[in-house]
Structures are given as C-alpha cells and as structure tokens.
C-alpha cells in the first residue's frame, strides 16, 4: 500500500476537467517532476458549458496556472463581475423608502474592516436612509453606476474594487485546454471510455478506451459531468437529491445579442425572481447569456420559456425575443454522498449540481482542484486520510451552499404562486438554516456563527443577503460602546468618500474592456 501516486488520469474534457488539469499541473510542476497527467476527452460528448460567472478567486487561479489576464479577457469574451443583483426577490414594496425598488446587491467586497468590526448593528439606525451594502462598501454603488472595477493603469489581476468574471464557458475551456497542453505538459487523448477496471483492492487500475486501449493510472478524477462515469456508474456512490429544499431542476438558456455592440455591460449578474424560479442575465463583451431556472414541479417548460422571452422583450423587442433559439437543461439538484472513493474523486457536475444562484459551480471546481493540488497524496496510504478530509470539507461546502441559497428564498415575502409558499414551508428548510435564523433574531451574523473553518460564503455574504432582503430583527439588544460607535461612524464616512472618489475615476465596463483589448493591462 506504499505505491507512490504519480500518474493522474482525468476523465472528461469540460471546464471541470481542464481547470483541474491546469491547477494540478501548475502545482505539481509537471515539467520538472515525474508526475504525469492524462486527460481523456470523449469525442462524442459536447461539454454542457454551464457557469458563466466566477468568483474573485478565479483571478488567483488564472494567475497560478500562468494565463495572462489580457489573453483571458480577449479570448473568453470575458467581462468584469462585481457581484450579484437580486431583483424582485423581496416581493413587496416595503414602507422603508430604501426598498422602494425591489432590488439589492450582494457585492464581492467585504464590509469595511470586516475582520475587526461588525457594522451591521451600527447601520441599523440608518436603515431608512441607506441600504446596507451602500453603507458598508463602495461596490454596490459602483455596480449600479455600471462602473468597471479598475483602471487601464491597474496591473493585471489587481483591482480597485474586487471582481470576478463573466465568461463564455466554451471559449474558457478552450483556453484552459491550450494552456494545459502547450504550457503545462498535460497529455490529451480524445477517445471514448468503454470500461473501467479495478485492481484487487477495488481501486481503479485503468480505463479502457475504444482506440487507445487501456489507460492506467494511480489516481482518477471524474470530470464527466452528469454522466458521472466513475463515481456514479462505476462505484455507485449514492446521489443525495436536494430537490425538497431547492426546487429548481430545469434551466432554459438563451444567448441574446446586444442591440448595439457598444451597449453598456452590467457590473453584476442580474437575477430576477419569477413566479416559479428566477432569470439570470449575464453581460459578456459580445452578447448576453440569459436563462430561466425553475421548478418543473411548479410550472411547465412552455410557461417558463414564455416568461423568459417576455423578459427579453423588454430589452430586445418582441420580434428578436421570439426568434432566438433556446436550450433546455434538466438537472437533479444535489450531490454525491461521497466525492472521493478509493483512488477516484469527482470534480464538477459529476460530484453535484445546484442552481447557479450564487455562481458556485466554477468556484467549487477551483476549491476542489486546489485542495487536491495542495494536499496531493504522496502514496496510497496517505490518500486514505486525504480522501477522508476531502469528503468532509466538500460535504461542508455543499451543506453551506444549499443553506445559503435557501436563505435567498426563505426571506422572500412573495405570495404570487405556490412555489414561494412551498419555499418558506419549514420542511423545505435545512436544519442549520432554521437554527441560524433563530439565532439571528437575537444577534447579527458575524464570524462566530460560522461553523465551518473555511466557509465558502463568509458571514458578510449572509449580511448582504439578509439586509438586502429587508430582514429585521425585533429583539436585538443594542450595545452602546462609545469607542466602537465612533469607529463605525468613521468607517461610514470613509466609505462615502471612497465611493465618490472611485466613482469619479472609474469608467464603464465597455470602455475599459475596449482599452484592454487595444493596450492590455501591464503586469506590474
């Protein structure tokens, strides 16, 4: 059992496969070591290409794998994303004038000095004058103004206002493939897997392909998407459905053109709640990616598509909105019971999939690939320990994703369909969320109520969504520490200044992207 782990075989050539290959190859320094990575891509299967939104973590990931930001932006039709804007989620026009429009932003930037001070209680007394996000960070205001997160003089991957990307998933996986093959020494085999063989310990010894015969390896990564060839079909690891908590199980996607090639590009992913789901709207450089994700238990595909086209009519006019072709994707929301079994782990949709409400798909792939790269097992016996930890961490991530996504629903006051009533039914709410909601009646979310060590969503994200949704607690005891109060006042004041300064110098996304394509960002 002291076999060294040297040969890695990745099955699947979508974004998950290539991203994992790149991260691993960069970390293991393939060029100067005796590790090998082989990626087997089926010739028959078209990658599904979900996930057009990333988190800010993607900047670090791209840098790590040696892709220049200029190249990434030009080849992937990419634009800057500063957060998500949720429209019509509250479901009622509250008496509070701040919420006259049913819309709030969950920005990527943490509240000012978040490590040291919880601004939420101090903001509460101004909640009639300014919304939470605008009070504690500049990003939501910049986003509403359609501002870019940086200047052309800002170096590659640096920022003035924290950002991730919107990207064309197909082009992105093409760029990763090129990087993996040309720069990172990853072997690429295009072939169909016809069998998976075990050794006497029930580890996968090799996969059999149509043309290339047996491909042996020490570690196998299942990136085969919904097919889940290794972890699902071969190992029969249980799938845990979460449809009873997050109902959405179907998506209709449409690629929509801009009316004018120089139309403004939104700084956030727009997420507009519908009667039985919500519509995403992502602005790339050359087009928008728009889609309706909904619960087929609550409405029909025809009805949902009609709503999507109606949404598009507002910007494109009736004729164009009717003409565009759509694609329907069905999915079972949930994840595997285990993600790493024997010498095989699943990354990407083979591990699980959930509606893209907080763009967690690519972020989770990055997390998984980084974990594997950093904790790469030296031999078969340490693999056991690492696999156990990987399963714990990944389970925690899934639990948190589901809890956090559900938070968006349970705080809604929409009453226009059974869907929204079902969403607030106690039996549909994860236990941990019920507990947290009870706690938050008496205390503001902050670091202490986070159970996980490295949570995917920090307490700040909970604050942005809760206060964005108009959450108000009735029974929080007010604390009157003078020094902390003064500190909070100062931070609020600084934030107003910073917001004004940044708004004055930053240009629109379109203007900056045009400059990037013409001049590029400098490396320093």
């Amino acid at each position: 059992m002291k076999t060294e782990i040297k040969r890695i075989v990745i099955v699947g050539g979508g974004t998950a496969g290539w991203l994992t290959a790149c991260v691993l190859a960069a970390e293991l320094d393939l060029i100067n070591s005796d590790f090998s990575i082989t990626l087997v891509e089926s010739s028959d299967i078209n990658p599904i290409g979900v996930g057009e939104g990333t988190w800010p973590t993607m900047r670090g990931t791209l840098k790590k794998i040696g892709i220049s930001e200029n190249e990434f932006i030009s080849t992937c039709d990419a634009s800057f994303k500063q957060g998500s804007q949720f429209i019509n989620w509250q479901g009622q026009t509250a008496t509070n004038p701040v919420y006259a429009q049913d819309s709030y932003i969950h920005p990527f930037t943490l509240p000012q000095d978040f490590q040291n001070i919880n601004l939420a209680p101090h903001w509460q007394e101004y909640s009639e004058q300014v919304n939470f996000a605008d009070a504690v960070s500049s990003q939501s205001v910049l986003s509403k103004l359609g501002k870019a997160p940086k200047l052309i003089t800002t170096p590659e991957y640096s920022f003035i206002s924290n950002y991730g990307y919107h990207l064309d998933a197909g082009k992105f996986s093409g760029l990763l493939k090129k990087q993996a093959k040309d720069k990172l020494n990853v072997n690429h085999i295009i072939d169909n897997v016809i069998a998976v063989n075990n050794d006497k310990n029930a580890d996968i010894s090799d996969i059999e392909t149509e043309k290339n015969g047996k491909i042996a390896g020490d570690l196998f990564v299942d990136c085969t998407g919904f097919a889940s060839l290794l972890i699902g079909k071969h190992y029969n690891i249980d799938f845990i459905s979460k449809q009873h908590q997050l109902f959405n199980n179907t998506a209709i996607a449409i690629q929509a053109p801009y009316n004018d090639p120089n139309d403004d590009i939104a700084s956030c992913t727009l997420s507009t709640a519908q009667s039985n789901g919500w519509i995403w709207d992502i602005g790339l450089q050359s087009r928008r990616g728009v889609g309706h994700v909904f619960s087929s238990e609550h409405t029909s595909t025809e009805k949902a598509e009609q709503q999507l086209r109606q949404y598009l009519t507002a910007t494109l006019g009736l004729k164009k909105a009717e003409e565009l072709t759509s694609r329907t994707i069905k999915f079972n929301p949930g994840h595997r019971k285990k993600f790493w079994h024997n010498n095989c782990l699943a990354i990407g949709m083979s591990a699980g999939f959930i509606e893209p409400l907080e763009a967690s798909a690519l972020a989770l792939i990055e997390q998984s690939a980084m974990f594997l790269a950093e904790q790469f097992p030296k031999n078969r016996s340490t693999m056991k320990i690492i696999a156990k930890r990987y399963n714990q961490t990944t389970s925690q991530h899934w639990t948190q994703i589901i809890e956090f996504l559900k938070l968006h629903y349970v705080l809604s006051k929409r009453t226009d369909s059974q869907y929204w009533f079902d969403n607030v039914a106690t039996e549909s709410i994860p236990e941990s969320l019920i507990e947290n909601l009870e706690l938050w009646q008496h205390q503001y979310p902050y670091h202490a109520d986070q159970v996980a060590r490295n949570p995917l969503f920090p307490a700040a994200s909970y604050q942005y969504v809760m206060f964005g949704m108009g959450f108000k607690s009735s029974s929080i005891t007010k604390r009157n520490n003078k020094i902390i109060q003064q500190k909070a006042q100062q931070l609020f004041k600084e934030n107003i200044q910073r917001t004004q300064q940044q708004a004055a110098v930053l240009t629109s996304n379109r203007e900056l992207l045009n400059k990037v394509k013409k001049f590029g960002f400098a490396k320093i």
Partner: protein
Amino acid sequence: MATQKLVNNIDHKDTKIITERSATYGDDIWFTQTFPAEFRSVQAYYPIFFTKDENTGKFLPVALFGFEQNENLFINDGLWHVPYIPLMHARAPFLIGKQTLLEDGVEKLQRVLFIDENHPRVNTEQGAPLFLEFGANAPYLENMANMMETLHHGMQDNDVFIGRLVELELLESFTLDVELNDKSKHQMLGFYTINEDKLAELSDDDVAQLHKDGHLQAIYMAIASQSNVTRLLLLKNAALGL
C-alpha cells in the same frame, strides 16, 4: 472651430510666442514625458521615473518637477531656473501634424508644424515672432521645427525602449516617501523605476542588444537621475521657507 492650425506665414505673420515661464502659461506641471535621446540632458537636473499613461496604461518615462499636482519647483519669477526644459514641454504651443503632399506625382505623408492658437502663449503683442518681416522663418521657429523633429524620433524610440523594459521585466513599482524639514511626510504613488536586481541578472545577449539600441545608456542615466530627488527636496524646503 479648430484651434490647431498649420503654421504658415500668412495666417501667422504677426504671431508671437510668449517665452516667460509661469503657471499662467501652463508651466505648473509636476512632470512631463521624456525619451532616451534626451535622458543625458534631463538627468542633469531632474529625476527620471516611469509612470503609466492614464488613457492607455502604457509606461512612459517622465521627468519630475515637483511632488504634487501643479507643483513645478523649477519655475519662479517668470523663469525656469535650470538650462534644460524637456522637449515635450518646451514645444508648447506647437504640435506635430501630418499632411499628404504630392512629390513627383507620388503622394507622400509629411510631418508639418501645427500651432495651438488657443494656447495662452500665442498672441500678436509680445514675445518671439514666428516670421521675419518678409515672411522668412524667424530663428525661434527654426529652432522649434528642429525640436519637434527630435521629439518625433524620440517618441518613436520610446515605444521600442518601453517595449524592451517590459519584456525584460526591468521596471518595478516603488513608492517615493519624502520627509520635509518640518518633518511632514509625503507619499507619491504610481511611479516605477528600473529594477536593478533584474538588470544585474540580464544575459549577455540582452545587454548587448540594449547597448546596440542605445538603451543601456538610457537605463543607467535613469538610475543616476534618482539622486536629483534630493535637489527637488531642497527646492521644496526652500519654497516653503523651511
């Protein structure tokens, strides 16, 4: 109305250029662009650093005149107190224009001298005349025309020079911390300088190529020019009476 016009002895027969140096005439700048061919003259008086063009993000070498916006420590009482003014600034109110001319029946693009008629230096009352009595170029204009030619070639060389510096990773960002005699501290951000560690590690081939292009000399001139920060500091202390 276009205010940039081709310099000619009909429209501009009475035009004069005020040569006084002061804020009124746009001399209150804290740096201006420079280029390798004038580094030798520039480094005698000014620190040479690099900054990014705010419209393109491209690096530019600049000669520094002060520590903050609108501060030019070299002007005083209508004079610029050192003998060399970087050409990019000295050229005002002139610009380089392009004109298509027919030469032996062939269309040729030629550089021509334009003047910004709205520039505060431009008038008909005082200063250096552009043309002599019978329409010939005045010495001042001849001098300007030569200067613009040098500037044009300097700008072209700049693109190559900067391209090499970026490629060889010879630039690094730095923050200039300045402490005045009254102990007040000032910090200047957004400037770059030569990375001397990287410079020391260059391969023989790279060094030879830089030398051939005249850029090695420019690099060392830029490094040497940093000692002029002390001169700026003296001027600043003096200006504040410290």
